[in-house]
C-alpha cells in the first residue's frame, strides 16, 4: 500500500467518523436514545438507549478499517487498520461531544423536541458536563482499538465473537417474551437468574455470550467436517432426521399458545394475519412482479364483508356463522380482485403501484364517509362480529383463535409453495422477467396477472375476515395505507418470492414492535429504513428464494449481460415513455 492509497484510506476513515457523528446525533435527536434508555441490555451496565448511539459510531469505525473492494488492494498493514479504526471512532465521539457543547450553549429544544438535558446526560455517559465530553473521547479511543482489533482477528474467531455480542442483545431484548414463557413453565428461578429489571443479569449475559461463542467456534472449527458427514449419510437416514424435525415443529406450533399465555398469543395471532397477507401479496409482488400498494383494499373488503355477513346488527342482519361466511367472503375477494385488477393490469410497474395506492385510499375514504354509512357504519364501523363457532370452543380467547389462524396460514403457505413450483408459477416467473418474451412463448399475460391478483385478494380477504373476528368489530381506522406498506416491508425484508422470508419478516416487523413498546413509536420510521436499506444493500432479502437471488445478483457482476437480457442500456435506467 503506497502513500497516496494510505492517505485516501485515512481520509475515508475520517469521513466515516463524521458519518458516525451524524448517525449518533440523528439517533439522539429523533429521541431513540432517551426513549430506549429504560430498557436494560445488561442490567446496571448497559442500556439500549446508549447502545444504539454507540453502535452507530462503532459500526462506522469498523467499516473504516477495511478499504472497499473496488480499490483493488488487499488489507492494509496492521498498524494502519488500528489507526483508521481509532481515527474514525475518535472523530465520531468528538463530534458527539461537540454536539453536547452546542446543546448546552443553544436552546436547541425549542425546535428539536428531543434535544433535552436527559438526552445530553445519557450521551455524556451520565457524567457532569466537561467530564462527560472528555469521557466520550476516551470511549472513542477504546471503540477504535476494539474496531481495529476485531478486524485483525482471524475470520473464524471474528464471526463467533460478533454472533455472541448480537446474541446477548437479542436474548436481552426478548426479555418480555422469555419471562412469560419461563413463568408459564414454572421456571421462576431460571428467569430470575438470567433476567433482572428488563435486561440480562451479568452472569446471564456471560453464559449467553459464552454459549454462543462456544457454538460458533465449534462451527467454524469443526462445522465443515460435520456437514460432510451429514451429506454422506444414507438417504433414508437423512429423511428420518427431516421427518423428526418436521414433527417437532408441528408439535411446537400446536402447544405454542398454551406455552406463551394470552397476551403473546394475541401478538402471534396478529403476526399470523400479517403472514397471511404477506403470503398473498407475495404472490402478487414476488411471483408475478406487480407492485400493489393498495393491498389494504382487500383486507378491508374481507373485514367488512365478514362483518356485514355475520354481525346481527349490520345492514343485512343475517348473522351468518363464520364458517358459512368465509366461502362467501373468498368468492367476493376473488371477484373484487378481478374487478379491481382488470382495468389496472395493463399499466407498467410504477404506474400500477400508484393506481393501486389510489384505489386503496378510495376504499378507505369511502368506508369513512357518510355516503356509505348505512352499509359500513361510517367512522363508527360495525360492531358485534361474532367469533367462529366450533364445538363449544371459546374463540374470543386469543389462545383459541390462534388455531384457525394457524390452519389458514399453513394452508396458505402450502398453496403458495405449490403454486411457485407449478406451471402457473413458472409462467409468473417468465412474465416477471420479461413480459414480451413471455407473451411470445404463449403465456396469456392478462390472465396470469388477473390470477395472481385474485389469489392475492383471497389471501388478503381471509386475513381481513380474521381481523373482524379478532377485534369483534371493524372500524375504518385500522385499514389505511400503512397496512399495505407494512405488508410490503415484511416481504422486502424477508425476500421477494420467499415464503420463509414472509414468516420471518412478519415476526420481526409486526411481532417485535408489539413486544417492545418503545419500538412501536418508531415502527414506521424503521419500515422506511428497512425498505431503503434492503434495496441498497440486499435487494433479494434476508432469506432469499434461490431463484430471486440468482436474478438479482448475477447481473451485478455482468452488466452487459443484464442489459442484453432486458434490452436496457447499461448506463441508465429503462427509458420508457409512459404508455399503456
Amino acid at each position: 500500500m503506497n502513500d497516496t492509497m494510505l492517505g485516501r484510506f485515512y481520509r475515508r476513515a475520517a469521513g466515516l467518523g463524521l458519518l458516525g457523528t451524524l448517525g449518533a446525533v440523528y439517533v439522539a435527536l429523533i429521541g431513540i436514545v432517551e426513549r430506549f434508555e429504560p430498557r436494560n441490555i445488561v442490567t446496571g451496565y448497559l442500556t439500549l438507549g446508549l447502545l444504539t448511539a454507540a453502535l452507530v459510531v462503532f459500526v462506522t469505525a469498523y467499516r473504516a478499517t477495511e478499504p472497499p473492494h473496488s480499490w483493488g488492494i488487499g488489507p492494509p498493514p496492521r498498524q494502519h487498520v488500528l489507526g483508521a479504526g481509532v481515527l474514525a471512532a475518535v472523530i465520531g465521539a468528538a463530534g458527539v461531544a461537540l454536539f453536547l457543547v452546542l446543546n448546552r450553549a443553544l436552546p436547541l429544544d425549542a425546535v428539536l423536541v428531543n434535544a433535552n438535558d436527559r438526552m445530553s446526560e445519557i450521551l455524556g455517559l451520565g457524567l457532569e458536563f466537561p467530564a462527560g465530553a472528555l469521557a466520550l473521547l476516551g470511549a472513542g479511543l477504546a471503540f477504535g482499538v476494539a474496531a481495529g482489533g476485531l478486524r485483525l482477528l482471524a475470520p473464524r474467531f471474528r464471526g463467533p465473537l460478533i454472533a455472541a455480542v448480537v446474541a446477548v442483545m437479542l436474548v436481552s431484548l426478548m426479555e418480555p417474551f422469555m419471562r412469560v414463557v419461563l413463568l408459564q413453565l414454572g421456571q421462576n428461578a431460571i428467569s430470575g437468574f438470567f433476567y433482572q429489571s428488563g435486561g440480562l443479569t451479568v452472569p446471564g449475559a456471560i453464559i449467553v455470550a459464552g454459549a454462543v461463542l462456544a457454538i460458533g467456534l465449534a462451527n467454524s472449527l469443526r462445522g465443515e467436517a460435520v456437514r460432510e458427514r451429514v451429506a454422506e449419510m444414507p438417504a433414508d437416514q437423512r429423511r428420518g432426521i427431516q421427518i423428526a424435525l418436521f414433527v417437532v415443529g408441528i408439535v411446537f406450533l400446536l402447544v405454542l399458545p398454551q406455552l406463551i399465555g394470552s397476551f403473546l398469543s394475541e401478538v402471534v395471532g396478529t403476526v399470523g394475519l400479517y403472514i397471511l397477507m404477506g403470503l398473498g401479496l407475495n404472490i402478487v409482488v414476488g411471483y408475478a412482479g406487480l407492485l400493489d400498494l393498495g393491498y389494504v383494499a382487500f383486507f378491508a373488503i374481507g373485514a367488512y364483508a365478514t362483518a356485514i355477513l355475520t354481525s346481527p346488527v349490520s345492514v343485512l342482519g343475517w348473522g351468518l356463522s363464520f364458517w358459512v361466511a368465509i366461502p362467501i367472503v373468498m368468492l367476493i375477494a376473488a371477484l373484487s380482485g378481478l374487478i379491481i385488477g382488470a382495468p389496472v393490469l395493463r399499466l407498467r410497474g410504477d404506474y400500477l403501484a400508484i393506481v393501486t395506492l389510489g384505489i386503496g385510499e378510495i376504499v378507505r375514504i369511502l368506508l369513512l364517509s357518510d355516503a356509505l354509512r348505512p352499509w359500513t357504519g361510517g367512522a363508527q364501523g360495525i360492531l358485534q362480529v361474532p367469533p367462529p363457532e366450533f364445538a363449544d370452543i371459546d374463540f374470543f380467547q386469543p389462545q383459541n383463535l390462534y388455531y384457525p389462524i394457524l390452519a389458514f396460514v399453513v394452508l396458505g403457505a402450502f398453496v403458495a409453495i405449490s403454486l411457485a413450483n407449478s406451471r402457473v408459477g413458472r409462467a409468473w416467473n417468465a412474465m416477471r422477467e420479461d413480459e414480451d418474451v413471455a407473451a411470445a412463448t404463449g403465456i396469456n399475460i392478462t390472465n396470469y396477472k388477473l390470477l395472481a391478483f385474485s389469489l392475492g385478494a383471497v389471501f388478503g380477504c381471509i386475513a381481513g375476515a380474521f381481523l373482524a373476528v379478532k377485534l369483534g368489530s371493524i372500524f375504518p381506522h385500522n385499514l389505511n395505507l400503512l397496512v399495505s406498506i407494512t405488508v410490503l416491508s415484511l416481504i422486502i425484508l424477508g425476500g421477494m418470492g420467499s415464503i420463509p422470508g414472509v414468516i420471518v419478516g412478519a415476526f420481526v416487523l409486526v411481532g417485535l414492535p408489539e413486544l417492545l413498546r418503545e419500538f412501536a413509536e418508531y415502527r414506521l420510521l424503521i419500515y422506511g429504513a428497512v425498505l431503503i436499506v434492503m434495496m441498497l444493500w440486499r435487494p433479494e432479502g434476508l432469506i432469499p428464494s434461490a431463484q430471486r437471488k440468482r436474478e438479482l445478483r448475477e447481473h451485478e457482476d455482468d452488466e452487459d449481460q443484464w442489459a442484453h437480457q432486458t434490452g436496457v442500456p447499461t448506463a441508465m435506467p429503462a427509458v420508457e415513455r409512459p404508455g399503456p
Partner: protein
Amino acid sequence: MRLRLPERLSFVDLILWGLRVAIVVFVLVGSYATLSQGVLGFDGWRTLLIVGVAQGSIYALIALGYTLVYGVLFMINFAHGEVFMAGVFTAFFAATALADSGILNGNPLFGLAIIFAVSMVTSMVVAVILERVAYRPLRRAPRLVPLITAIGASLFLQYTFRSLYGSGVRSYPTIEILTGTFDIAGVPIQKTQVVVIVSAILLMVGLYFFVQRTRTGRAMRAVSEDKDVAAMMGINVDRVISTTFAIGGLLAGAAGILYVFLFNSVSFSMGFLPGIKAFTAAVLGGIGNIVGAMLGGLFLGVLESIGPFLFLDGLGVPSTNQLRDVVAFTLLVLVLIFRPYGILGRKE
C-alpha cells in the same frame, strides 16, 4: 376520430368499457341533478372556482418537481411530498421566531423573504441528500427497486420529521398584510389566494425560462434526451441530476409556504396528500412535460373544489366535502388507466 371496437371483446375490455360508460353517466346525471336544483348561485360557483385555482397552483408547483425528476431519471420520486413538508415544517420555527420578535408584522416583506428562504433551502437540501443517498446508487437497478426505495424514503422522512419536531399540528403565526380581501373588478377575493396564484405563476414562468434559456436548463434537457450522449458532450450527468432535484426542492419549498397561506397549519403528515395529488397533476399533463404539469395542477385543483358538489350533491349524497380526496384519487386512477401519457402527451 374513428371509434373502433376490438375484434374480440375480452373480459378486461368489457370492464374498461363498463367503467367508461359508468363514469360518463355518473358525471352527467350528477351534474344535471345538481345544476337543476340550483342550490349554488353564480357567486358560489365563482368562489369554489377561485379556491380551486389557488389550490391548483400549489399542486402545479409540487407537480413540477415530479415532472422534472421524471424527465431526467424516468422514476417517480415518491418522497417528493415529504420534501415539500420538510421545508414548510422547518420554516415554521423561523416564522414563530420572527413573529415573536415582531419582525414578521413590522417588516413583512423581509420576514416573508426569510420564511420563504428557509423553507426553500431546507426542501432543496433534503431533495439533494435524498437523491445522493437513496437514488444515485440504484440508477442501474431494475425499475421497481428505486420505486420501493422512494416509498421507504417517504416513510423515513415523514417519521424522521415527526420525531425531530414533534407529532402535533402547528399553526403558523398570522401575517397581517395577507389578511382581508382585494377587490378585483368588483369581486372580493382573499388576499392570500391572489398572492398564491400570482407567486405560483411567477415561479412557473421563471422555471420555464430557466429550462429553455439557460445553460443548465439546456444540460437538463440534454440529459433527459439521452444520458450517454449528454455525457459524451461533456455534461456532468450526476451534477445535472442533483441540480434537477435541487430545483424541484426549491419549488416544493415555495409551494409549502403558499400552502400555509391557504391552510395555516403544518404537521409531519401534511406532505402525503398534496404529494399524491401533485403526482396526479403531473401525469394528467403528461409526465415529463413542464407546461402540462402546470395545467394539470390547475385542472385538478378546480375539479377537486367543484367536483364533489357538482357531481354528488344533486344525487343526494350527504357531506360531499368528505369526498374531495375521492375525486382526486378517482381522477388519478382514471387518468392512469385511460390516458397514462397525459392530456398533452402523445401516445407512443
